């Protein structure tokens, strides 16, 4: 019987997030949005 799958913990989870392109695309767009806001103010 295969053991139940456990969510990644601690450093493993952080590494998975930090190497995920799905994380960095929104981060870059967020920074662009903040810059636009500074410009418009």
């Amino acid at each position: 019987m295969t053991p139940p799958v456990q969510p990644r913990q601690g450093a493993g989870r952080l590494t998975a997030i930090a190497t995920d392109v799905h994380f960095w695309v929104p981060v870059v767009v967020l920074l662009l949005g903040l810059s636009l806001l500074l410009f418009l103010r």
Partner: protein
Amino acid sequence: MCGLAAGAWLGAAEAPTKLVTVGFSPFIISLGMVAGVFVARWTVPVALKGTSFVMTDLKAKPHLIAWGLLAGMLWAVANTLTVFAIRDVGLSIAFPLWNTNSLVGLFWGWLLFNELRGSAAKDWMKVLGGAAAIVVGACVLAYATQQHSTAGPKNATLGILAALGAGLLWGTMYIPYRKAYLSGLNPLSFVTVFTFGELGTVVALASAFHGGLGNLWVELGRARPAMFWLFLGGFCWVLGDLFQQYAAKYIGISRGIPLSNTNQLWGLAWGALVFGELAGLAPGPRLLIIGGSAVMILGAMSISFAEAPAAEQASWKRATQRECERYGMDESTVAAAVRGEEPLSKAKPKRHWWEALVVFFAAGIFVWLGLNAARQELAFNLPWMIVLAAASLAALLISGVALWRRTRFS
């Protein structure tokens, strides 16, 4: 149905941002709405599902907390940009411009989540034709604004820039949405984390731009008579967003988002019928604005009629497998949750006595603000307001009941 109900409520939610035209700062308007969203989150969703369900759901997919916060931050910055856009070019013109977010969402859905991969040529045609219609509609509106806006040319350009920027941010916000639902997270759990990211960002932005928390507090005190209307906008937004999230979960972002973008029609209706925004315009520009909006809506509808065939469903499955391998989730449990059949949702959620207190307290804030509310110096048409509010309520009831019957809000 969820996508269309989302359109009605997200459209209504933007109406109170008109208060920017009576002199409130865009940051205060945005903060008022977001605070309303935050408080509203603790009314209807807590009453529906309780908090134990949300905690268990998040514990099984803890990595998604990062994406929930990120989505909230993107929403907050985009919402502040829309307030600038409304100030400079008006609600009925800004609205369709930031609805180009469906194109952005479609692009990210295709690039990052395998949406539309394996679709037939006719589905691609529906999607690309719809996307082209949205761009053409946006250009027509931009032209109408530049030529006929009462704002100066510099203001109109900045307003358009702000609206398009909001479209980019909102379109990108669907990356976290789709990621969450490919992993089987319940929309109510996602919204919970989302509101924290949103409120934190808006408080930080507003205090940075108003010279610290002290000044912000003074400004908020000044805006208190208008705060009820902003909170009400936030409440409408929570309902609209929940429907939007269920749409993203069950039909994907490339189809769900264009559907919920029929909120443009509602935005136009609120702007033109209730606030009389098009009253001073000649028939020519008025026709351009209505025609541009209609073209964009037709484009959105064309996209949403491109159903996902079996080959595309297989691509979606591969996207889910990627998430399961990367973050250590059980594929069969996630697949059941994605179909709206997760065991967690079927079990009777454990309720706590203090949840009733939370709902009571959150509702109390709305009542207190309502008692302190003052009529704002903003001309509006009451009969049209009643008609639009009644139509939105009908959409809420019909779609809410259908969603409950099919998924039990899973």
